[in-house]
């Protein structure tokens, strides 16, 4: 098949995973060009702020569900065989309230709220929670073994795996897709561009996808340990507030969340929300503080991330923009990690299609 020079724009989990899968083909020469790289913390760079973990919300029978399903074995393999990736297994419990099913948030999280979500056959140790485990507040719930990803280790790990395969990384702040081919590390123009710019696809010239919008998530990272991941389908504090917590691998701390604030661009910490997050977390999981109050949370830092949500779903398609062949892979909302390999595989397939000589109508 074809030899090609490729520029991947964006070094979040989507860009890095796509670059990694592309790099497995020795005939591609790949440059990852991005404004932000692993190790940076910035409001424009969503990936480091994520949990991250495997809690599919995709609906059964959709392509999105396929992406999640394809990704699970990869994450499982990392957790099992590659401790250096910063991914570990963790038990998870998901609590659902009937009243949340019809809320906006509930519909967004749809699959997760079901009693029998499609992933029950994919993840290990899936079981329903018993009535006594649920208590009075929750109507149904399930538990299974999932993974929790320490983004601070995982993103650099992805980068280093790329480096092992000869991918070159370049800082760049591109205004337009057509500028991408020119920054390939060989000095020759790239044959193809992969667009993994997430929320910035809103303003990247040539893309300017108006369907992109942030879903703001605020978090608190603490040193306290939970050894469990859990989430509640909704809270009484407002329909944009949620409760979840997870403990990151390799001393990554325990992440308490959170919020799903649609259309909210605010990069600044909301202190009141922070307090509510902490309170809810402690209530859901008293073991965090041995039953004590939030003043016993040992805070590492607060976080604000803008989930790069796309109305109409993640966009993975090929397109010619101003003469430049582009494969898009953006708009992963709050599921960028759990769909990362599935989406990247589709992107890789499209890259192959672009590079194959095409018959002329």
């Amino acid at each position: 098949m074809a030899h090609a020079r490729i520029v991947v724009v964006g070094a979040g989990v989507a860009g890095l995973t796509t670059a990694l899968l592309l790099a497995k083909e020795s005939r591609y020469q790949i440059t990852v060009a991005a404004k932000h790289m692993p190790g940076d913390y910035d409001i424009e760079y969503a990936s480091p702020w994520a949990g991250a973990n495997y809690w599919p919300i995709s609906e059964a029978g959709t392509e999105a569900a396929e992406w999640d399903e394809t990704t699970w074995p990869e994450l499982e393999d990392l957790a099992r065989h590659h401790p250096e990736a910063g991914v570990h297994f963790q038990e998870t419990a998901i609590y659902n309230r009937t009243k949340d099913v019809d809320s906006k948030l509930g519909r967004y999280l749809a699959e997760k709220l079901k009693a029998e979500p499609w992933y029950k056959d994919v993840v290990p140790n899936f079981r329903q929670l018993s009535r006594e485990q649920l208590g009075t507040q929750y109507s149904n719930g399930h538990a299974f073994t999932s993974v929790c990803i320490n983004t601070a280790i995982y993103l650099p790990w992805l980068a280093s795996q790329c480096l092992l395969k000869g991918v070159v990384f370049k800082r760049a702040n591109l205004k337009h897709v057509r500028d991408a081919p020119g920054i390939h590390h060989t000095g020759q123009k790239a044959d193809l561009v992969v667009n993994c710019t997430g929320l910035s696809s809103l303003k990247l010239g040539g893309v300017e996808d108006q369907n992109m919008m942030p879903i703001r998530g605020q978090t608190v990272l603490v040193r306290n340990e939970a050894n469990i991941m859990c989430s509640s389908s909704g809270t009484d504090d407002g329909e944009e507030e949620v409760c979840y917590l997870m403990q990151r691998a390799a001393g990554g701390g325990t992440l308490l969340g959170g919020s799903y604030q649609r259309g909210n661009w605010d990069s600044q910490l909301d202190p009141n929300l922070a307090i509510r997050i902490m309170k809810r977390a402690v209530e859901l999981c008293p073991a965090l503080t041995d039953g004590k109050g939030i003043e016993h949370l040992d805070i590492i830092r607060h976080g604000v991330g803008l989930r790069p949500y796309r109305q109409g779903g993640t966009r993975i398609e090929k397109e010619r923009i101003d003469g430049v062949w582009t494969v898009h892979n953006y708009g992963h909302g709050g599921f960028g990690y759990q769909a990362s390999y599935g989406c990247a595989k589709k992107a890789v397939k499209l890259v192959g299609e672009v590079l194959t000589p095409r018959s002329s109508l």
Partner: protein
Amino acid sequence: MAFLGGAECSTAGNPLSQFTKHVQDDKSLQRDRLVGSGPTVQDTFRTQRNGLDQEAAMQDFLQQNSQVPPEALKPFAMEQMRRDLDGYRMSSPGASSPAWPTEFDPGEQSRLERAFKTSKSSNFVPRGFSPAEFQRFQQMERTQSPRISSPSAQVHGYQRPMGMGYGMSGMGLYNPMPGPQRPMESVVQNKGKDRMVELDDKDWEQQFAEIDAAGKERERELSDEDIDTLANAAMEAELGDMDRAIFNGEYSHNFDTDAFGNFDGFHHHQRDPNLGDYLFEDSNIFSNAKDPYSEGTRIMSEGGNLSLAALAFEAAVQKTPDHLDAWVALGQAQAQNEKETPAIRALEQALTLDPNNLPALMGLAISYTNEGYEPTAYRTLERWLSTKYPSILPPDQVSQSSEMGFTDRHLLHEKVTSHFIRAAQLSPGGDTKTMDPDVQVGLGVLFYGREEYSKAVDCFSAALDSTTEGLTNSPPQAHLLWNRLGATLANSGRSEEAIQAYEEALRLCPGFVRARYNLGVSCINIGCPQEAAQHLLGALAMHEVVEREGVQRVREVMGEDVTTGGGGGGGGSGVGVGGLTEGEVRRMARMNQSTNLLETLRRVFTNMGRRDLAERVQGGGVDVESFRGEFDF
């Protein structure tokens, strides 16, 4: 583990004091943001604004040195451009000057204004520009800073000799889809907090430093309490406005697309190919011919050399620039010659003369599809349908590019397909034999674009049937349909059948370079690179046969008593043909190469592991004859 142990949240103490303890000590969020980026103007702006200042927050996010063309972002460009140091000066009324700078420092505004100067530029390109001049102009364009987004003058790398100026068509007729929850212009105008400033590339460093200094000064003047109070007040006001604006999803801007569009009848979006002017060959043996157009049509109808026909048509349009049929014929010849870019340029030129020319529209739709510009192809097909079947789709209902986000090509596709299906249903009883074959072709292209290949095969087959029934009144097009059928089969993995279709096409028209190219592609797909190379080289050889045939042709046409230095391809310094020197004659048809042919050939050689051969195939051309020894073509 008991997750709900009934533990109460500790409510010891005032929640706010808890907050103080937890959060005040920990400014790491802000700190992380600031570390590494250094004090920037963004940061200074931000510290004055706490809390949920949505629109400012979004601007913060979008604030970049981005060269996003203003026309493409017009409705929410106001937000994006506000704090943006590379922003634009809004000349629209209602953009009030920001309140806060003057509140805190009356001198601020004038300082900022001094720091920037408006860079005006006229982007009109008068008709007199030659393509080469325009390309130079365009180079300059690209390195300059973004300019005023006024409807009258905007070039976005789009070249076109149009009387009214390039600006129109380059202007993005682009409206974001209604619905996204984002602060709207109405909010933005209410606030009037910020100001668009324009930054001239050359002086931006100095200007940036001035703004930065201004910002820092302001920062020092305010204490934390001041900020909090102001922020809280602002927050309250904003929340109200913001809620309203977000949930209404109002856009107060709508492009007046008609203002721009109709002189070329074709609304161009920045996602259109924007290929520019047709590039003519330097030497053309037909340049002195009396009626090159007839020459060209004769060559085509005889199935002669397409490069020669193209030269004839080039001469025709150079003689008579508004010769519509010649432009159309030129485009068609080049497409069949597997030279897609010249084909598109020629057909687009035809559309400037007649926006509703059906063959040009259909030809363009196919060329756009080949080049990967499916959305453009769909809109072109829509226009074709509306022109031929206005009862199905009245012209005023044709999609404006502003209506649909270009990231939703599926919606556009469905819309256009449904129109075509209705047109197909017009034939009595749905009889495919009486169906308009062009409708079938259009449908075929639509299905092809969406990779619904079996449906496309049905359509092209039906078109072939009705052609053979003699229903079309255009010249025999069967070879084109065989090729389309072949391409569809090839893309759906039916390579052997595709090859048969191509061979039928070539039987009908041996000079059909495109079919020969496709044959090469299919040979690659079935794993016969040697044969593929042969077909590709054969196709390229046809591009080169111009000299030989050209001499002969000109003799016939012009009845000149000409001598050459030994016929086509011969050496020496003999007299050329038609007033051209020998060398010029041999160099004909070098201007427009077939990128497809060359790239595919190079790829074949690379895949064969023959880097040596691949290196001999360059973008500027290939010495086909030199491969004769190794390949049989």
